[in-house]
């Protein structure tokens, strides 16, 4: 358990691995934060939508001959459209009700989607091959980093930063932020807020599906892959501050690093360390590290 007994290369390697996991946390919590920010809905179906992303990618290869690179674009669009359908038909009925109803609805949806996939495909999951061009490993001196994992870091950083720029630096993003503050006022200015809400939900879901495609070659494509991850991602969002865009990205990556270090220092605790941090953060800053007190 002694920190100093661990050689530096090992620590560096664990940090890199932590950064990879952090990339997934960041992508998923970003989607959750965007959805919560505008819709005020705690999207419990996020894990199921991530799983859907991986499965749709698998369907693509299996039945339609869609390769990985095409899947990276097409799958988020497909699953995002499915998300918009859910928003239009179900979620939109709940905006006037308490948060709790949205939470229960999305939680129920997650259970149904997962159950259907377990029934159809079993729990062991399906293999998804790593794309040809990303096989093999890079020698970083202190570790062999599989090329695919390096790609995951790059892809998720680009998407996270891109989303952040759109929200913070464009007119569309300005509408979105305005809607988060006061949607009625925004509607009074002639902006079609219901449409914007639908598109936003679709975008959040598409981010989850994108993460799902990224994860497919690393983990088994399995119905349970989302529920295993989603609880941690919720903790990330709470630590970052509900609805804070930058907060979710930074905490996602940061907690990936913390978790990575825990896995060398005290592996048994790696499953709980994020929740311990969450408890401490909530005690000291109830709104989260980047959240604003309301």
């Amino acid at each position, binding site marked *: 358990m002694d920190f100093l007994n661990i050689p530096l290369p090992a620590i560096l390697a664990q940090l890199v691995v*932590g950064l*990879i996991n952090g990339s997934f946390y960041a992508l998923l919590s970003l989607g959750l934060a965007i959805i919560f920010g505008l819709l005020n809905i705690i999207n419990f179906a996020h894990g199921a939508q991530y799983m859907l992303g991986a499965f749709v990618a698998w369907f693509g290869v299996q039945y339609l001959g869609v390769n990985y690179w095409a899947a990276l674009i097409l799958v988020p669009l497909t699953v995002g459209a499915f998300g918009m359908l859910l928003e239009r038909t179900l979620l939109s009925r709940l905006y006037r009700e308490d948060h709790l109803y949205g939470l229960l609805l999305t939680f129920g949806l997650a259970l149904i989607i997962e159950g259907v996939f377990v029934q159809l495909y*079993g*729990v062991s999951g399906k*293999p998804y091959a790593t794309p040809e061009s990303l096989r093999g*490993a890079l020698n970083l001196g202190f570790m062999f980093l599989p090329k695919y994992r390096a790609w995951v870091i790059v892809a998720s950083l680009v998407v996270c930063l891109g989303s952040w720029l759109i929200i913070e630096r464009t007119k569309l993003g300005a509408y979105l932020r305005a809607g988060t503050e006061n949607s009625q006022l925004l509607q009074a200015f002639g902006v079609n807020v219901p449409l914007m809400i639908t598109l936003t939900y679709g975008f959040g879901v598409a981010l989850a599906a994108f993460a799902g495609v990224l994860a497919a070659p*690393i983990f088994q494509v399995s119905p349970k892959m989302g529920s295993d991850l989603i609880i941690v991602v919720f903790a990330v969002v709470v630590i970052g501050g509900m609805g804070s865009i930058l907060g979710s990205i930074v905490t996602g990556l940061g907690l990936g690093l913390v978790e990575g270090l825990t896995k060398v220092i005290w*592996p048994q605790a790696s499953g709980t360390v994020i929740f311990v941090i969450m408890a401490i953060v909530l005690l000291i800053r109830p709104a989260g590290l980047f959240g604003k007190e309301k």
Partner: protein
Amino acid sequence: MNFARKAGYAAVLGALAAGAAQAEISDGAVKIGVLTDMSGTYSDLAGPGVVAAAEMAIADMGGKVAGKPIVMLSADHQNKADIAANKAREWGDVEKVDAYVDLVTTSTALAVMEIAKQTHKVVLISGAGSSRITNEDCNPTAIHWTYDTYALAKGTGSAMVKEGGKTWFFLTADYAFGQNLQKDVTAVVEANGGQVLGAVKHPFPATDFSSFILQAQSSGAQVIGLANAGADTTNAIKAANEFGVVQSGQKLAGLLVFISDVHSLGLPVAQGLTLTTGFYWDYDDKTRAWSKRFFEKTGKMPTMVQAGVYSSLMHYFKAIEATGSDDGPTVVKQMKATPVEDFFARHGKIREDGRMVHDMYLAEVKKPAESKQPWDYYKILRVIPGDEAYLPLSESKCPLVKKS
């Protein structure tokens, strides 16, 4: 007291004694309760396939045993000991179930065994793995059918050490089964002159194994032992593959790998893995004949757990047929007195501690080029005779074992 009177008392007493264990089926039916994981981590290796195997056994008996109908109940124990215990108690009290079947996590098996101990019901365990079930926690009416951690350790552990894998590092699922497995394998490795360099206890279940694989790599051990099961094992194997563990000369030992795991990983990733199994569908004509029937019913080849459930139920039904009784202790006595020899078990016998000892198989996962047809996954390297595979009775801590 004259002789006639004495004889009369004796006859009455004799009749009473016979009445207690009388040749009779209670409640007009033989009821079996299948408790398994229907939707969780272990549902592919047990779950619906176990229910299908039990249905096949009942159908092959013609739906009847000793002239009475066989009734099957099934439930999802969700791998939780409390749920399993509650269901078992309810089934025992209300439904009058005579035997509990499968039980796929050690904790659920131990919980149901405790209830069966009080009610003298039969427990036919196939899915659960810990050797505790027939060792320190053994039970007069419980039978452990398919495999256990000791046999896995003995099979895979000693084979790998003999092949030159002298130094070991474990990735261990941090709960009873994983720790038990690591302990059993460590004993085997050390007894064969090997050495354990270290272990990582990972949370159960864990998703990302890359960090643990890196630690195993840097340990420099020749063999990385995976003391876990199900999705943990498949994810660990995937990560090992990605980080080039095998290419850099280390070997992976899957200590509990089911054919459903290999099927889900695919041969390109799983090839070369050494493992121990209690059953393989493509072993000979008998295994193939039964497995093809199973495949037609379920669309999958059976795991050893599913085949074991069928085998244990048939042996149970035949014992009821022979004794005409469904009384737990009576049936188990008959089961223990009869050798087990069917498509599943070779040279099988049930010992006094409840262990069904049968031949085990040391297997290697084929390379994609060697696989000629779907589900053609294993090369059987060696048949491990039952007495060599399982814990010798002389080392048993089970109180039922009479020490000479």
